[in-house]
């Protein structure tokens, strides 16, 4: 893992070339040979993530890796969404495969086979026998006014169900999942209120579970007239202050980036708490999540440097351990 100082050094680098040079001196160096563009850096750090996840999954956990598998299902679902979208948009298999990060249970060969499918109607049979087959059967873009929304939401539901099963009985992981659900619900509610979604539409997007056990709070969040009322509804929760500050920043900067950054910072804090226990799955998962954030930060810096963003602008957009 990188140290905070190293991330600072990346942010303060003079140019993209300079950044790649500094990054090459770290553990990412062996993956970065000849990296000249953002996509080279993205490919390199993704490769590092894939290899690390594989080695953690195979070497350390042996038969007891159910929580990790459940967590990595997140990437499976992301990959599946990408492949299905690629097929529906008639992308070439190589274009689609460039966007996937092969971590998780879904075999790369299966993803490649799916990406090569020319007729989207053949997708369910490609995933025959998996839990994705019935969802793909139901996917009908011709007669849907909301595109992939129902399919994506079903996959998101499947992910959280898998996580619930996988994390069951491990308090640190259950607490993390609850926080994840809470923050997702807060973020969804704020986005819905910003975009003028009705309470009925919002109910369908709300994740069940989480630590908000009070039905009144959830009802207030859903029925809130605007973002201010959502903030009042989440008052006295551990997230209240950070979210309130982020919403204020959003209004000032006319951008939703501060909200995204604040939510992710809170989630990362929760992941840190998960790693406090010296033994058990919490440490492993917290390491994987930290690595995920580190890689996301590297990608952010690479893109920012390529686009000529200043150090201050970049620092405001990064969430790292």
């Amino acid at each position: 893992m990188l140290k905070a100082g190293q991330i600072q050094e990346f942010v303060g680098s003079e140019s993209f070339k300079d950044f790649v040079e500094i990054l090459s001196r770290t553990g990412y160096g062996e993956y970065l040979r000849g990296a000249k563009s953002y996509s080279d850096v993205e490919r390199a750090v993704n490769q590092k993530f894939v290899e690390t996840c594989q080695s953690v999954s195979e070497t350390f956990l042996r038969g007891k890796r159910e929580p990790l598998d459940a967590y990595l299902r997140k990437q499976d679902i992301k990959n599946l969404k990408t492949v299905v979208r690629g097929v529906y948009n008639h992308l070439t298999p190589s274009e689609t495969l460039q966007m996937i990060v092969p971590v998780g249970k879904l075999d790369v060969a299966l993803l490649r086979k799916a990406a090569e499918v020319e007729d989207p109607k053949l997708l369910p049979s490609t995933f025959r026998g998996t839990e994705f087959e019935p969802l793909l059967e139901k996917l009908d873009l011709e007669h849907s006014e909301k595109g992939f929304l129902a399919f994506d939401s079903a996959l998101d539901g499947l992910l959280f169900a898998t996580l619930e099963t996988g994390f069951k009985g491990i308090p640190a992981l259950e607490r993390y999942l609850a926080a994840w659900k809470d923050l997702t619900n807060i973020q969804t509610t704020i986005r819905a209120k910003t975009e003028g979604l009705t309470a009925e539409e919002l109910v369908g997007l709300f994740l069940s579970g989480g630590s908000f056990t009070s039905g009144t709070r959830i009802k207030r969040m859903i029925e809130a007239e605007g973002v201010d009322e959502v903030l009042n509804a989440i008052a006295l929760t551990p997230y209240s202050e950070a979210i309130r500050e982020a919403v204020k920043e959003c209004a000032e900067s006319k951008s939703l980036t501060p909200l995204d950054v604040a939510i992710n910072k809170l989630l990362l804090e929760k992941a840190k708490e998960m790693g406090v226990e010296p033994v058990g799955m919490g440490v492993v998962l917290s390491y994987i999540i930290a690595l995920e954030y580190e890689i996301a930060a590297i990608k952010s810096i690479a893109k920012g440097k390529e686009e000529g963003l200043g150090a201050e602008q970049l620092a405001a957009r990064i969430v790292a351990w």
Partner: protein
Amino acid sequence: MGVTKRAHELLEEKRNALVMELYAVLRQMTRLRKDAYESLSKAFRDLVDAEVRLSSSDLRSVSLAVRPCPEIDLKTRRVMGIAVPIISVKDPRRPLSARGYSVVGTSPVVDQVAGSFEDALGRIAEWAESEAAVRRLVVEVEKTKRREMALDKIVIPRLIDTIKYIEFYLEEREREDIFRLKRIRARAEKRGYALTP
């Protein structure tokens, strides 16, 4: 000649009216172009922001889930007899639930960039409409000017020449007639006939 001069005057009036209309539409187009540029530059800033926050691949993947752009209506209206297009985008700003991607699995920066491009689309349609009107008006002004010039430089001078020629020819014939009459009278007087005047 009177009709031609009237036609020339009418064409001149039409050209003046068209130029006035053109300036009004040009002013509007300049404002709309500025708005479109501003909204597009905001959209691209938001795109860079989104690419920095998410990765380019993740953002591209989400963009593939976004439904195609809303319907664009093309109609025509008449400005001083000229057909100019009306380009309208049906509800460019779509609600979150109609964009096609899931809310739970994506970041708010995606809403930001999608919303910005939807706004830009509406602005671009308005700009395109006024630019098309400007183009049509310019063509019509040119056409009217060409017609006016043709009347001024070709038809009217040609008509004047024709009139002059006819006048000259008629005067010539009148002179010949007078001369012929004088000679007949002289001959008749010589032979002792008296001609009534």
